[in-house]
Every structure is written in C-alpha cells, then in structure tokens.
C-alpha cells in the first residue's frame, strides 16, 4: 500500500513536472514573439494616446515646443461655433447613414441568401464597392457622378427633373456623402449573410407549420436570430461614421457654408492646416469620449433587443 502510493505520487510528480516545465519554457518564447506587437502597442498606440492627452493641455504649433496651457483648448473649443457645427453635422450623418446602411445591407443580404444560379458572382459584385469605397479614387468618381451636368443630372433630366447643384447646395451636399456611405454596405452585408446561414432551418419549419406568413417568419424568426449581428454592425458602423474623413476631404472639403464640416475634417484642419496641434489633440480626446459614450449607450440598450439564446 505504502509503496504503491509512493509510486503513484512519484509518477504524478514525474508526469506533472515536464508539463509545467514545458509551459514555463514556452511562456518566454511566446512573450519573445509578442515583443514586436507589445512594443507597437506601447509606443505607437498607448504612447501616442498619452502624448495626445498631454498635448491637449498645451499650445503646440509643431514649429516651437509645446507650452503648457491648462484647459484653455477645451474652454476655447466650447465657445468655437465651428466646433458645434461639426458636432451637429457629424451627428446628423451618423443618425442618418448608419441605419440607412444597416437596412440596405440587411435587405441585400436577405436577397443574396437565396440559392440562385451564379449567386457567388452577384455576391462578389455587390461586395466590391465596400472594398474601394473609402478610397480617394472612389471619392473622386463619386464627386464626378454628382457634378453639374454629370451622369446623375443627365439621368434626372431624362425624366424632366432639374436636380439641384448637388455639391453646391448646402442642403444637398451631405446627401451625396450619406449615399456614398450607403453604397459601401458590402462588409456588413457579408456578416449578415453569414448570420442568415446560421439560423437553424427547423425554426422556419416550425413557424410554417404554425401558419406564419413569410413576412411574419422574417420579423419573428430572422430578425431576432440576427439581432447579435445587427448589434455588432450597428456598433462598428457608428464608430466608423464618427471618424469619416477621406470622402469628405475629397468631395466637399467641408463646404458649402460648412454644411459638411465633419468632426474629423475640422480636427484635421486645426491640426494640419492651421497647426493648432494642442487644439486638435483636445478635439480628439473629446471625440474619444463621445464615441465611448455612444458605444456605451448602444451596449445599454442591447439588453432590450439583442437575443443571445439560440
């Protein structure tokens, strides 16, 4: 008895220690291979964020050293009419473009989830705009499309409609930008497609047996089952919309009459055109807070509409 217990203890010690040793040996290797990423994280991300926080309390024009200025940047911001304009414009954009894009991507994903011949090609073609949508080239093309006497105008004129000067009119310029965002629904659509495929078929069967119409099946089965994915797309879309820049910079550059002065565009103007780096840093800190608050709000509401039990 004694001997066997001893033996058992011995084997367990013998068995355990190589495993422990192996993990102990592998840990440093893992950290070693993580080093480049860790350094990047520390210096490029965390470091710059802390530096931004510091800069937001300074006057810094890049040409001379930053001077500590306290909260001047923040107090100036709150009395800057352009700051409020940019907040208003950005919120309008987020509130209009995010739902529009979600609805468009969901509808198209529903259509593309049907098994039709050549569906792969359709999916690829419809996904394409989202790959190039944020690029400078696509933005220039979009601008040309809405030019005076451009393609859109010509098509409208076929129907006897005299469209406005899309990019010259303060109330229509932002529509052009929203449409560009909607046009790039591809990445959301792909995620929705995957989600649609995940919904178990027996749920639809059961619903059909219970006499649900196809519309009812969509509303009662598809949407609730998709809600975690809708939540994900809503969150990512909202964050991305707050940070929209390239398209605005290329297509309208804030005009006419500041009607498309988006937050990040104004931040860029302050930082890299007027060289008010401290001011721009303060703006980016505020943007961080705004995005965090909005994301938090979406998370809070998710309790009421996101369905996690499958």
């Amino acid at each position: 008895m004694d001997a066997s217990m001893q033996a058992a203890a011995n084997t367990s010690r013998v068995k355990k220690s190589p495993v422990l040793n192996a993990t102990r040996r592998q840990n440093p290797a893992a950290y070693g291979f993580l080093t480049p990423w860790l350094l990047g994280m520390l210096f490029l991300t965390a470091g710059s964020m802390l530096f931004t926080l510091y800069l937001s309390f300074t006057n810094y024009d890049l040409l001379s050293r930053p001077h500590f200025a306290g909260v001047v940047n923040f107090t100036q911001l709150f009395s800057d009419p352009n700051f409020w304009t940019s907040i208003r414009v950005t919120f309008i954009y987020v509130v209009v473009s995010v739902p529009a894009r979600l609805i468009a991507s969901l509808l198209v994903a529903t259509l593309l989830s049907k098994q039709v011949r050549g569906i792969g090609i359709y999916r690829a073609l419809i996904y394409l705009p989202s790959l190039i949508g944020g690029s400078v080239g696509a933005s220039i093309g979009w601008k040309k499309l809405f030019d005076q006497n451009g393609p859109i105008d010509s098509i409208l004129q076929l129907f006897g409609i005299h469209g406005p000067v899309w990019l010259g009119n303060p109330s229509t310029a932002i529509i052009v930008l929203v449409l560009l965002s909607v046009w790039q629904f591809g990445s959301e659509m792909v995620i929705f497609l995957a989600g649609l495929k995940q919904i178990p078929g027996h749920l639809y069967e059961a619903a059909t047996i219970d006499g649900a119409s196809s519309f009812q099946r969509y509303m009662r089965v598809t949407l609730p089952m998709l809600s975690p994915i809708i939540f994900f797309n809503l969150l990512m879309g909202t964050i991305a919309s707050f940070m929209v820049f390239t398209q605005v910079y290329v297509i309208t550059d804030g005009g006419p009459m500041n009607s498309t002065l988006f937050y990040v565009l104004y931040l860029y103007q302050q930082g890299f055109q007027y060289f008010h780096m401290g001011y721009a840093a303060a703006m980016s800190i505020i943007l961080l807070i705004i995005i965090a608050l909005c994301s938090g709000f979406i998370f809070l509401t998710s309790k009421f509409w996101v369905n996690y039990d499958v």
Partner: protein
Amino acid sequence: MERSRRRFLAVTAIGLAATVSLAGCGSAAGNTTGGSGSGSGAKQENITLAWWTNPSRTKMTQQAVQLFEKKYPNIHVTMEYAPWSGYWTKLATEAAGNSLPDVMQMDASRLNEYVTKGRLMDLGQTAVDTSGESKSTVSLGDVNGKLYALPVAINAICYIYNPALLKQAGITYDTSKSYTWSQFANILIQIHQKLPNVYGATDDIWQGAPLAYWARTHGQSLYSTDGKSIGMSQQTLAAWFAYWLNLQQKGGVVPAQQNSAYTHSDLQSSPFLKQQVAFTYMFIGEGPQYQTGLGSTIQRVLYPEWSQSSKPYMLHPSMYWTISSQTKHPKAAANLVNFLENDPQVSKIFQNDRGITANVKNMKADAAALGGIVKVQDDFMSQIQQIASPVPLDPPNAGQLNSVLKTIGQEVTFNKLTPDQAAAQFIQQANQILAQGS
C-alpha cells in the same frame, strides 16, 4: 530559473532585433536617393532640398539639381518633394523633429511664421547673390528689415477673358483702359443680357487676393500695419460683398449653388473652361493651364482701376528659396540657392512654372529664346511691374482667414447674411484669429 531568464532575454532580443531590422527596411526603402558614395577626395557635403510640386515641376527641378551636382561634385543634394498640402504637414513635422531640410521652397503665407519661430537663416549673412533681381523684388523677402527669403519668381492677379464669347456678345473690351469697378460690373451684366446661357464672370466674393486689391483701390489695406487686425473699414468690406451680390442678382456672375461647387485651385472644375463665364480671375502663372484647358487663346487684362496714382496693383512673391537656421552646410546651401535662382540654364528649364522668373536678365533671355506663352506672360508682367508696388507680407495666421472668408462669402451668396452683417462678422472673426497669431 537562471537559465530560463537568460533564454527569455535572448528571445526578447531576437524579437527586438526583428523589429528594428523591419523598421530599418522601411526607412531604407523610403529613402529614394540612396547613398551618396563615400566621397571622392574632398569632403562630401550632403544637403537636402525640399519643394512643393506638380508632375512637371518635379522633372524640371530634378534636372536642375543634376546640373548643380555636375558643377559642384562635392555636394550631394537629397530631394524631397510633395504636393502643396502634404508639403506643409511634412515640413512642420520635420521642424518638430529638428530636421528641417537645408534649402526649402517657401510661401508668403508661411514665411512670417517660420521667421518668427527662428527656423530660417538671415540670407544677408550668407553668400546668396541678389544682384540679378530688382530691388523691389528682393524686398518681398524682407522680414523685420532682414532678408530671410529670396523670391524665385513674382506673380500678380489679373483677369482673363474668353475672346470668342465676347465677340459673340458683340462687346469690345479695351485692354489698355483702366475701367472703374462699376463700368466693369456693367460689362459683366451686359454679357449675360446678350448671351443668356453665359454669365459675366466667376464670383470672386471669397477670393482673398482680389479682396486685398479692392481694399487698396479704396485707399485702405486688408491688414493693419502691425498685422494684428483687419485694416479695411467695415464699410469698404460691406461694399465688396454688396458689389458681388448685385452682380449675382443681375447675372453678372454665376448663381450661388454653381459657384460653391467650384474651387479656384481645382482648375478643371472652373466654369471658365466650360465656357459658362466670359471672365475669371487668375494668377499670371496659371495662364498656360487655363489656355490648355480652354483649348484656345485667352486674353489677359488688368484689374479695374489699376491706374490710380497710389499704385494699387500688387506684386506677389510667387515662391521663395529659404535656408534652415539649423543647417550644417550653410555654404553649400547658399551655393544651391544661387544656382537655382540665377543660373541661366536652370531658368530655361523652369520657364515660368514657378511664376515669372525674378532674375531680370534670365527673364528677358527666356522670353527671347523660348517665345510663345513665356513671352506673353513676361511682357504682361513687365507691364504690371511698372504700375504695381510690392505688398507687405501676410501676418502669421493669415492662411486661416481664407476659410472664414469663404464661409461668410457663401452665406452672402445664399442670402443668409446681408453685406453689412457679413462685413461685421468677418472683421470680428478675423481679428480674433489675427490676434492669436502674434
């Protein structure tokens, strides 16, 4: 324990080395000019030349630098160029890292800022040779009585018109006459009356240079002498807004929506090239682009009221050469500036790409040798030089006023502000910005 720690350190070191070598690859790939060789005989000097560019300017400048390196085999020039907006970001970043290029192309709207921050060298203390340029031209690079920047070329605003459209409208324009502002407005309105599909001109209500000229024809100036506020009266400014609003209402200039869909720097979108307007304003240096864009000859004319005895016409420095105050090779840098500024061969390569050549001898030689549009530009410029006076340098922060003027000008064209309200608002906002600049 001891062993694993050593191993941990070793692996970390490998990781670090990998990171560093990756970073190294990046910078080696980014360095377009490569090594300069280990120097043959005399000590090799490395200097950097930076300029904002367009595709043809890049080629011209590279050619000029090749000639320079042939003449001075011991100086190697690293070239650094970017388009206008990227250039200033890059330069400011380099200034922040204390690594400004030795020789920099500089603009009047930024010069004051760089001088105030102590980033530029007083050229009077270097061997830079200014004997080839007229005194009034050289004075354009003066800041607080010291020469910090040497004008490469000079420029001025003017109007151009499309002769075919004027002929169609049956209107003759006397190119030698000094029209009054209101006579000029009548011509623009007449064009629209005769040709309903054409407007007289582009709406220049938010263009800074024409506004500065307007102030001068009213015996005032855009900025106060100390540069800390707007120099013109609210009344004169309101009259400016009212002038363009009146034209807009009568078809003398394009309607509001159309005008705000176009930016002056995006030449391709200009209504002038689409033959929707007969007149537009430009800087003389832009002539060839307008002519190519239109596909036929353009006519250059002076702004209204140019013949006033106060010489309101403005001579603008088009670009400057400047030397960094931190350069380690001031002599080599001065040699490069002299070469780019005064060498006749370089001048022939550059033509009028940077504006009308500042070196008088070279300008005349180019006009004779190259003829064509270079001669037209040069002749027009020498006509302007006789009636113009140099303008004082823009105060720091002046660059920011453009967007303020644009927004407020647009609000006038869309009838959101009356000319009086617009003038009051512009002066209030501009003064705030200018006060922060000093």
